[in-house]
């Protein structure tokens, strides 16, 4: 018995989010919460204990009225590849509750394996990982809308965006039944991509030239997967996290806000990471 995946190029699922289109409407956050059984509490105003796999940050250009500008930045898990799949979080997990798949480029999180040490949260510079400080509780009757495709997380474990991996699993079922080889681009889209009313999110295989995300990002594999698109940048690219979520903006201040720069450094032109 041999496995067909052995003969296909590995996929690197990733995203391109157009910040000039993003309106900060929050549909992606909510679509994610609805899709992934994300719990909620009575008071969610303390964002430091509020589970939002997809979180929208509000950036501003720091200028005074009336030259102020703001920009919204949706932040899913960046699914860092790091160097050879050693993303900041997976390498620190002591119990292998999270791993990096070379086949899909997705960083997993296995809630039943995780025992809640939270080291991965400390390691993630994007604050994409969330801890279940409380038992997940739905008001009486509301648990009816919970989806069987995603496990409900118990108290005391870390959770994060999975690029809606269950959708890939379900799409694969169909692929098996149809006798195809690969999941078609349209059959595997994340809930946030699907919901975004502004069409700001594009999701697909960064390795596949036929996928829209590849065409937008044009990743440069020779250069740490940096985008060849001058509008594109990645969050904290200099850290060498090698993320798979690319952001697009025409505004220089927005692109500059994506990374740390010394005063004299030019946006987008940074030294290579140290490792």
């Amino acid at each position, binding site marked *: 018995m041999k496995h067909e995946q052995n003969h296909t190029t590995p996929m690197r699922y990733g995203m391109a989010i157009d910040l000039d289109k993003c309106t900060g409407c929050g549909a992606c956050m909510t679509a994610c919460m609805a899709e992934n059984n994300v719990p909620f509490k009575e008071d969610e105003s303390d964002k*430091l204990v509020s589970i939002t796999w997809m979180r929208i940050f509000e950036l501003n250009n720091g200028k005074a009225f009336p030259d102020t500008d703001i920009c919204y930045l949706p932040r899913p898990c960046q699914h860092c590849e790091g160097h050879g799949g050693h993303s900041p979080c997976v390498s620190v997990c002591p119990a292998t509750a999270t791993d990096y798949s070379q086949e899909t480029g997705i960083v997993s999180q296995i809630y039943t394996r995780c*025992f809640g*040490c939270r080291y991965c*949260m400390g*390691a993630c510079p994007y604050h994409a990982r969330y*801890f279940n400080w409380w038992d997940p509780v739905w008001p009486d009757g509301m648990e009816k809308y919970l989806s069987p495709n995603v496990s409900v997380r118990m108290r005391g474990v870390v959770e994060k965006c999975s690029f809606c991996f269950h959708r890939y699993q379900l799409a694969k079922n169909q692929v098996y039944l149809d006798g195809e080889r690969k999941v078609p681009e349209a059959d595997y889209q994340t809930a946030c991509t699907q919901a975004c009313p502004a069409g700001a999110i594009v999701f697909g295989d960064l390795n596949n030239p036929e996928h829209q995300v590849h065409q937008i990002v044009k990743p440069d594999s020779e250069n740490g997967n940096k985008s060849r698109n001058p509008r594109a940048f990645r969050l904290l690219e200099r850290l060498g996290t090698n993320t798979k979520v690319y952001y697009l903006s025409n505004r220089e201040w927005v692109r500059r806000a994506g990374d*740390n720069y010394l005063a004299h450094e030019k946006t987008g032109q940074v030294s290579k990471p140290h490792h």
Partner: protein
Amino acid sequence: MDTALIPKGVKRCPMWQFLLGLGIVGAVLLWGVYAMLLCWFKGLNQTNMNDYYGFALWIWADLAVIALGGGAFFSGLLRYIIGKDELKHIINYAVLIGFICYSSALLILAIDIGQPLRGWFIFWHANVHSMLTEVAFCLSCYFAVLTIEYIPLILENRQLDKVPFFHNLSHNMHEIMAVFAATGAFLSFFHQGSLGGVAGVLFGRPFAFREGLLIWPWTFFLFTWSAAAYGPCFTLLITWITEKVTRKKLVKDNVIELLAKISGWMIFTYTIAKICDTTRWANITAPGLGQNLADFYTGNAFYGYWILFAEIVLGGVVPAIILISAGLRKHPTWRVVAFFLGVMGVSLNRWVMVLQVMAVPILPFDTWALYYPSWQEVATTLLPVAYGIILIMISYRYLPIFPQEAELNPIEEETSTAVEAHTKSAPDLEPAKA
């Protein structure tokens, strides 16, 4: 009442006093236990930790007690491997303190994890890439070693020692203590280092991240070094406190001074290394990631340059100078000041490497996250302190922790039995001769 259990030739406070003390500390202990149960049954929402502060007071306490408990392995190394024989007069206490520190660390970890019932996954499903895995394995092994080192001391209790099996066991264990000391030193080197690595490998956090040697970031070596340097400081500080509390001289000055001197030189070298590390990090590592030193020490209400000064100068340079210079070292007050500063310095270092790491914003559009612990966190952190004090109280009362105590504090109205016991027990405390 319990005189039969008290080592021969020494005087202990009256039972009521002892029980009163136990009661007071026990109350703190119970408070901590209550908080611990709250955390276990209600979950970690009892703490003030949050998604930015996944590691907070507890992990700091863990790192700090393990650094401070480093006195055990380093004294053991000096005593058994290097052959600093005088240290045998303080090694018992160093082992006891180490035992307390490490058991406390394990207890705190058991409270700190979100799913204590699955804690064993760290062993069963170990990820060899994780520094925490290394910590867990070495920590547990070294705790076992410390237990083995502590057992003979327990067996030296006057009553237990009468049981020939225990007597012989104790004797035999003393014989092979060097092996354990070596094992302990080896394990300690790794887990102390791994604890340093915990922060150093975080390449997503420029404040913590350090380059290093092979797979080990510089913090790996700095942590081991600092534990070896400051651990004895803590042993000596606790010894000093014990002497003050018992109003007795328990260890001779030459022993104290020897350990203090070694500690001083260790701190001195460590501080140089730390300064080099900080300089390199501030000028090469961080700017390479687009960050200035000012990004880490300004723009918030708590973490200023003062913390760098307090850690390196007050907690490093000053105690090093005091302990190196013979005059200051021999001065009882200066010496204790140095111990205190040293303990403060290493604790501050661990604080910085845990809490400040979490506090510093990394995303350019993010802000500092400051944190203060909840009472449950404070209580559970005081729990091991109370437990440690109780264990010291009991151990001190019933075990011959300080071999020089009887000699230094002759009992004036000696009865003939006591004299006999004294003369008889003294050689007993010399494991090598026993």
